[in-house]
């Protein structure tokens, strides 16, 4: 497998006709670990969802290329089959579909018809990943995410990443909801996978807390504020943010406070017969 590259060029997009991202530039190559931080509601998940092709997000301009191919022109499933993976902040629950059945379908979706994975090799890979993630052995046979605790859902996202072996993986707040041990286990599994796959996989982590970076050491740390990348640094930038918060950056970048709070109030008013 060649070294993958995801290039995001001046990407802007909106949801509900409101522009959230105003021109994002970012390049992630195989073997690199990028981290995105930023205050609540600044567009981090919006970026992740737009790259994956969530139907609620409209692209207004710019490009996203995966290995020189126009990602934004592909349907969601094709993006996945080309190697993009998104561990979601809020994974959906699907009743009636067991985790294991779903995982096997997903693995086979990436394989040619004459090379589908059999039940036994699949179970073996699945059990190994479950063990490595120290998950409850009953989770694969339960319905997909249904009734999973917050932490179990997150681990289940990593389980899928391990089995699907993506070229570019975006992990949206994979650390939220994890207890201390689970954070270590998830962190170590991600790092171990990154090391094992080397240049075959690039990582884009979205997080609020420096503590995840104790286990996954980033090459780049980007800060998104008001829909733009306002600063790029390394692990030290994350440490400084943890200590000092975002205010200093906001001032340096000459930004107003997040408009997120103001917007709903305006919306409320807009419904009134003035």
């Amino acid at each position, binding site marked *: 497998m060649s070294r993958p590259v995801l290039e995001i060029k001046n990407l802007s997009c909106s949801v509900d006709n409101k522009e959230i991202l105003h021109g994002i530039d970012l390049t992630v190559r195989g073997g690199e670990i990028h981290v995105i931080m930023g205050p609540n509601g600044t567009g981090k998940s919006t970026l992740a969802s737009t790259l994956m092709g969530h*139907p609620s997000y409209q692209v207004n301009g710019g490009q996203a290329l995966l290995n020189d191919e126009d990602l934004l022109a592909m*349907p969601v*499933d094709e993006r*996945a089959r080309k190697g993009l993976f998104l561990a979601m902040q809020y994974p*959906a629950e*699907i*009743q*009636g579909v067991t985790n294991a059945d779903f995982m096997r*379908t997903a693995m086979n*979706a990436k394989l040619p018809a004459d090379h589908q994975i059999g039940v036994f090799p699949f179970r073996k890979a699945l059990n190994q990943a479950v063990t490595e993630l120290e998950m409850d052995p009953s989770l694969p046979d339960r319905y997909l995410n249904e009734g999973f605790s917050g932490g179990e859902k997150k681990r289940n996202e990593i389980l899928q990443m391990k089995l699907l072996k993506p070229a570019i993986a975006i992990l949206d707040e994979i650390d939220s909801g994890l207890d201390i041990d689970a954070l270590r286990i998830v962190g170590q599994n991600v790092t171990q996978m990154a090391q094992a796959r080397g240049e075959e996989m690039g990582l884009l982590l979205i997080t609020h807390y420096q503590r995840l970076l104790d286990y996954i050491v980033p090459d780049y740390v980007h800060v998104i504020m008001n829909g733009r990348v306002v600063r790029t640094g390394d692990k030290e930038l994350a440490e400084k943010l943890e200590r000092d918060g975002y205010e200093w950056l906001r001032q340096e970048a000459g930004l107003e406070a997040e408009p997120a709070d103001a917007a709903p109030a305006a919306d409320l008013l807009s419904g009134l017969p003035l």
Partner: protein
Amino acid sequence: MRNIDKIRTSLGLDNIYGLYFSHKGLSSLLPLQRPDSQTGLAADSKCDPLTGSCQRDGMSLEPIASPEPEALALFRPVEIEQKKKELNRPLPVDCETQAYRLRISPVGHQVNLPVFMAGERPAATYLDITLESDAEAAITLVTAKTEEPIFLNINLEANSRLDLNVIKMPGYISWQLLSYRAAVGDGASLRQHSVNLDSSAYQAGQVFLRGEGAEARTQTAAFVNSFESQRFDMTIRHEVPHTVSDMFNHGVILADGFGCFAGRGVIVKGAFGSKAEQDSRFLALDPTARAEAYPVLIIDEYDVEAGHAGSVGQMDAEALFYLQSRGLTLEEAHSLITAGYLFPILHDMGRCVPALQKTVAYLQQRVIEKVSL
């Protein structure tokens, strides 16, 4: 191969003793062993197909007089006049019946009895079923192309447990009317699973929780084809303290199909410490699909727990996105979610009656075929 043999084999029920009602009425008592192709059906010395009586494995069957019209009238579902109009066909509830009494006594294990109804039966079929104290049985009613009504009068004595499974055999399209009444005694439990993937149907159930600790759980999986209609009408009355009921119904409806779950949980005064739950949902796969879910609770007692949910909805866009983001095509994601809508009922049936694993696998396969259009 006769159709009945095909059905038994498909469902993995061919090694199990069962009853077979055909165009001749109760025409055979199917033997325990699979018939070998040379000699045909092996004779079963304990059962006499001519008199329709049988004694075996804690089970006895005998013909009885057809119930009086007043008795049969109790099987009229509520609001029947209105439904007649909606269903646009007569509901023959006080018609002629062929009646049998089935008693099951405790034998230390779950008696597993398939009952097949196929072909144009000469009359409605009435089964009076009693589970004696501590008896455990799974009665799996399989209907194929047959339209005459089916009435079940069920009496569960103390601490008995009945798994009643109602399976409309996939691939045999015919209208079906089933109405059952069940009285559940002290500590006894009724678990009912209905699976209908093809045909128009009207099923009514009236359950009376009459003994302390009595329990009723009913589940339905309905796949409603285009221009078909399926209605399920379920009333559970909590008549004494500490009784538990749970209705769980899921339906999938294609274009121009109609589905209805009407659930009534009634807790009478004095039935304190009781619990009544209902959850009825439809997934409409087309804007022309019509569905109604009425989860009604009528409660005349304070110290109870009750909950009800009912919904008619479309495919969840977030769920579709999630599956697509893992590489499944839109069609695959759609199929998986639709099948998953009905699977919990099938899985639960398999958990309640482990001997039905093959039956469940067969039904699951049929669901998968239906949803991968």
